[in-house]
């Protein structure tokens, strides 16, 4: 390339020094740029492109995984829901049975208690009646004694008789 330029310069009779200088300066510029600016920047740009591509791949993978997980979750959720529904239905059934049982037990219990109570009441009443009968008899005897004691006094007898008669008259 250098020869070409020298030949071209010679044939045209131009200031070769200028051309040579520009050529050399440009070559040095290219060398420096390549080492200090172009090289690092292009490397960084490639690194970035790689990173972006890699990130895109990773993101795609993650998306697929997430989708898989989501579908798995939804099926799991579905099965869990049916299971829960079954459990609730079973529990309701069991509760209903238990309720009926409890109610029946309670009714039987109440019936028994009631019968017992009425029997007790009847017994107590008959006992009370027996007691009252005795007491009435005693009372009658006592009253009769008192009345008999009062017979000893004439006036009282008279008064009693009068009262009696008076009572008859009022009838």
């Amino acid at each position, binding site marked *: 390339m250098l020869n070409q330029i020298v030949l071209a310069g010679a044939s045209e009779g131009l*200031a*070769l020094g*200028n*051309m040579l200088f*520009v050529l050399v300066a*440009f070559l040095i510029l290219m060398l420096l740029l390549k080492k*200090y600016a172009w090289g690092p920047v292009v490397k*960084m740009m490639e690194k970035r492109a790689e*990173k972006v591509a890699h990130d895109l791949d990773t993101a795609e993978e993650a998306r697929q995984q997430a989708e898989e997980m989501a579908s798995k979750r939804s099926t799991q959720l579905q099965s869990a829901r049916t299971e829960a529904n079954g459990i609730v239905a079973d529990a309701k059934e069991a509760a209903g049975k238990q309720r009926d049982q409890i109610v029946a037990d309670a009714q039987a219990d109440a019936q028994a208690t009631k019968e017992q109570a009425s029997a007790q009441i009847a017994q107590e009443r008959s006992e009370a009646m027996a007691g009252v009968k005795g007491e009435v008899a005693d009372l009658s005897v006592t009253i009769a004694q008192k009345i008999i004691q009062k017979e000893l006094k004439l006036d009282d007898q008279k008064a009693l008789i009068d009262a009696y008669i008076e009572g008859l008259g009022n009838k």
Partner: protein
Amino acid sequence: MEESATFTIAGLTFDWSVIISTTISVLVVFLLAFWMSRKLVIKPSGKSKQNMLEWVIDFTNNIVDGSLPNKTGNNLKFFAFSLFMFIFMSNQLGVAFSVSVGGDTFLNSPTANPLVTMTLALIAISIAHFLGVEKLGFKGYVKSVYFSPFSALLPINLIEQFTSFLTLGLRLFGNIFAGEMVLSLLWQLAQSAGVVSFVPAFLLTMLWQGFSLFIGAIQAFVFVTLTTVYVSEKTE
């Protein structure tokens, strides 16, 4: 054309303006790229310098991919980037700075010198031909470049190789040189009648500098685009 002080080493003539301007341009490009490529991170934040550099790299990569979406293009991407940065910076150098002492220019756009642009064009065209030979073999290269679509077009194809080389270099030179010419004419206008001419010339200079920034960017883009087009022509 503006004069420039020269010196000679071993029979080779050097222009001070070319030496100084090219060196500064190369230095600015390198320092800028060096500064922007410090502390690289994998995820740069919104307005970092790294993003700026990566934007430029993407821009030149897209230029290359536009005409060479293959392995040849991949190998050419770094060259396209360097070429773009250098030409862009060279074009803008003369927009902001133009130093001349006693009629001799010492600092301007290197690309306002035809030798510089022709050197760049020579590099670009040489690479195109070299890659053509490398990819198609010498026979295939000769056949595809000089005898296609049919042998009778050989003279036209030969001429085309020279014209594409010449237009590539001269287009860049013409645009930037014309821009600098207008700037120096505006400077003369500014000096011509004191404040009366200084103020309008100042405003016009600002306008023209804005336009030149645009032209400089466009020409750098065009140069790189055409380089990749020529390479794709030679390697297909």
